[in-house]
């Protein structure tokens, strides 16, 4: 199963957050990692697409007072999702080997 860049970002953010993965948290994670705005439209439609592909599972969580008593859409990456994200990461790593920015990054460090 091949995925795109934004789908990879979303899967990675969800995997990093683990049990605390839900809409707002994933959005914040993506925005702080990429330094770019993540629109709510892109987030929720991509979540649906990934769920249809079987790469993640979502369900409605509990409501909290800080959210004005509204429920969260909780997210968990499935085994198939981990596989797809790994494949994407491997492909990016392989294709980046030896290019200038990859070499520069190794010299400067993460």
């Amino acid at each position, binding site marked *: 199963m091949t995925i795109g860049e934004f789908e990879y970002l979303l899967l990675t953010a969800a995997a990093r957050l683990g049990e605390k993965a839900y809409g707002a948290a994933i959005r914040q994670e993506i925005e702080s990692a990429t330094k770019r705005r993540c629109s709510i439209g892109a987030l929720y439609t991509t979540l649906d697409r990934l769920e249809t592909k079987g790469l993640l599972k979502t369900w*409605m969580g509990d409501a909290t007072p800080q959210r004005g008593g509204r429920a969260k859409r909780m997210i968990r990456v499935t085994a198939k999702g981990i596989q797809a994200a790994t494949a994407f990461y491997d492909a990016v790593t392989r294709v980046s080997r030896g290019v200038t920015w990859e070499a520069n990054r190794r010299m400067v460090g993460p």
Partner: protein
Amino acid sequence: MTPMWRLVDIVSRVLEPDEQDAVRGDFAESGETSGRALRGLLGLALRRQTALWRNWRPWLALLGAVAPFGILLSLVSRRMAQSSAITSWLYLNNWDWTYVRNTGFRLDFAHDVAIVLFEFLLLSCWSWTSGFVLGYLSRRAIWINGALFCLVLVTVELWGMPRFLGRSLLLSRADDFSPNSAVFSGAFYREVFPLIVHTVLVLLPSLWGMRQGLRLAALPLPLRTMLWASSALAMTTLAMQNSPWWQVRTWNNQPPPPPPAHLPYLAPLAVIGPLGYLLATTIGRRWPGRSAAFK
């Protein structure tokens, strides 16, 4: 709640209830400004609506119901408003209590009132069924299809068909209604009364029907078949008993020709639409394990 947040609240209703909750909660948690929330929400709503139109159902509703039913209902409404305006003028504007003592008058009065009420009942049944079919087929695409349907209803009622744009009914002269000029010389029966009939008996029942159609979830196959058969029958009577060309002539203020004699009078079957719905939902609620299908 500020007007902007109220707008966010209204736009968010386009989304499914669970998604609505999640998105509004995300906005509250991340302290989003109302402007950014509205932009984000509009983007999401647009994506969701676009996705809905990949299905055949909204297209069927748009092509099969919005334009034909919208135009036909407006034309029928105009004709019924004109005929009931004549009856109304005849009795209300010329009322004399001494007439009541006359048996012949009482019989005529009861007969004429019954006809007007019956026509109004048929019109509201046709309108409700049109809205219901539209809501059921469109589902969440009803925001677009419903708005277009209302637009067709209002446009045909106010401005008419393109051919007659230059002389809409709102601007028509009294002598356009020459056979009944005494009735239509006043602005009320010529312009206001048709709008009242159209709003109360077409627009409101259609919106109600859309709501019912939208709220109806899965029904067992036999009930679904019954519901569709009754709706189809009701809409067939609308098309059959109200031949569009005849309606256009009436709407253009030409004396209507007599209804085609070779057609049986099927208009009363219009009530089958709402009745079929009542029956299907009542049985559906008692159907084993199906009560969850109703919201």
